[in-house]
């Protein structure tokens, strides 16, 4: 199968964040960047689908400045066949603008399946994948926690509040990937060597107008320091008393 996976470069989610002097962004100094978590699951899902079917092509896309070439190379070291950078100076937080640029490029790609992360770590928005599907007129499963492709047909599971939905869909299709579908592999040394020779094409993006911008970024208020009230079952009466009188939840 011919599968496209769109990946975003985002800071490592374990980082401690500081706000940049502008007050409208995080301070990127010293942060490690990687493929965004859910898109990483999507790359793995694509590789597994093509490995199982014993063929096909996995192509990874990233929109952004030249620093997106690093996660694209990483995806190729995991096993993707080639990569495309859609060049922009910055990556807007406007998901529809990004979706338009990706859709314009993916339209003529002849893909059976186009995968995205459920949401990117930085935007935490969950817009781009489903919007691309709608722009291309393709069926879309948003936030699939299970995915299988067989005989030209897809089945997936989606978590709902207190329930889950099992769905079927024809190909070509778009799926945005939740955790649970696949955990990304680590690139092997052989994979890393091979990725250096794989094609990475770079071309300008056809970004739509940017209508969403960050006006301010703040760190959430710190929680007061934690407190240990006691040890073992002997501490239970004190806990219950605090839940009743202080926290007032009982």
């Amino acid at each position, binding site marked *: 199968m011919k599968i496209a996976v769109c990946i975003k470069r985002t800071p490592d989610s374990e980082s401690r964040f500081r706000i940049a002097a502008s007050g409208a962004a995080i301070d990127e100094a010293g942060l490690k960047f990687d493929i965004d978590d859910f898109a990483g699951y999507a790359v793995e899902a694509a590789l597994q689908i093509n490995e199982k079917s014993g063929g096909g092509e996995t192509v990874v896309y990233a929109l952004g400045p030249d620093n997106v070439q690093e996660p694209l190379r990483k995806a190729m070291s995991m096993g993707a066949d080639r990569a495309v950078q859609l060049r922009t100076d910055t990556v807007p937080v406007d998901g529809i603008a990004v979706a338009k640029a990706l859709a314009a490029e993916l339209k003529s790609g002849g893909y059976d399946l186009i995968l995205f992360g459920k949401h990117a770590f930085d935007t935490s928005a969950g817009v781009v994948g489903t919007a691309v599907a709608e722009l291309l007129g393709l069926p879309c499963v948003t936030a699939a926690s299970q995915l299988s492709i067989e005989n030209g047909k897809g089945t997936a599971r989606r978590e709902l509040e207190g329930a889950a939905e099992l769905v079927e869909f*024809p190909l070509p299709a778009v799926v945005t990937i939740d955790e649970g579908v696949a955990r990304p592999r680590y690139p092997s040394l052989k994979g890393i060597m091979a990725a250096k020779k794989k094609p990475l094409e770079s071309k300008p993006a056809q970004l739509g107008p940017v209508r969403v911008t960050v006006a301010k970024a703040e760190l959430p208020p710190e929680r007061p320091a934690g407190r240990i009230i006691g040890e073992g079952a002997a501490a239970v009466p004190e806990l219950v008393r605090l839940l009743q009188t202080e926290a007032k939840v009982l």
Partner: protein
Amino acid sequence: MANVLAFAETRGGELRKVAFEAVTAARKLADASGGGEVHVLLAGEPGIGGKAEQLGRYGADVVFVAESADFAKFARESLAATLADRAKAGGYRAVVLGFSAQGRDLGPRVAARLDAPIASDVSDFTVNGDSITVKHPAYANKVITSLTITGSPVVITVRPSAFTAAEAPKSARVETVQATPASGPTVTVTEVKEGAKGRPDLGEAPIIISGGRGLKAKENFKLVEDLADAFGNAAVGATRAVTDDGWRPHSDQIGQTGRQVSPQLYVAVGISGAIQHLAGMRTSRTIVAINKDKEAPIFKVADYGIVGDAAEIVPALTAAVKEARKGH
């Protein structure tokens, strides 16, 4: 003055809590834009129109009812097309949905169809002339951003529980509209698996009892279930270590790559407090931690920590909570 359109989410023929929250947020947005009307699209299975009056109680001026048998199975392409068509016909300032499983799917579709900008998971907003500024937790809740959105209409999905549904009674005018059928290939629902009955959803529960690997075995989640039962209105959550091992379904996972929750009370049992777990629950009002390792990072965020063996402490707590709640 500008009108705002809200989407009334339903499941199983009933309005969901986020439907009223979307109407409340739309009311707030219409008032802030100079006092326009709130219109609501109530799209659901045949008979759903009977729920229109309930929406009036929360401030809807007009309820547009679109009934279709396909909507019983979340015909997402047709729902999005129906909502987008209504939005086009009404010339609204904004379309408001809940940031729920349905809204996460429909919001981006509607925005793409309208070529409108979208802001997701919005916890608050202000209107300043031609732009709307929204509060949106980004970086898995680690950074709170204020986003400025220009253009009209805009699509906004609101964070569940951020806008408390407030009654503002109106006798809503009800109009029937046609459902727009899907124009291309579609996703078909083959089955809906209902989760554990009688427990609130994690996103809505005032109390959450969560278990981690410290519970040692799948069967021991019974301790967590029993404590949740003792509280009466509690949901049960889990860490990724536990969902990875298949002790609990992925839908129970709390954290950066799971659900993000802010209950009144969060009880963490046998959970170390990894940063990815904290990302999903650190905004809870009160946090209780039970862990045998007094150095566990969960104690840094716990208002009340007890050091010790969960197998001993949790049953004692369950008994004490039952005792305290006698008569409830």
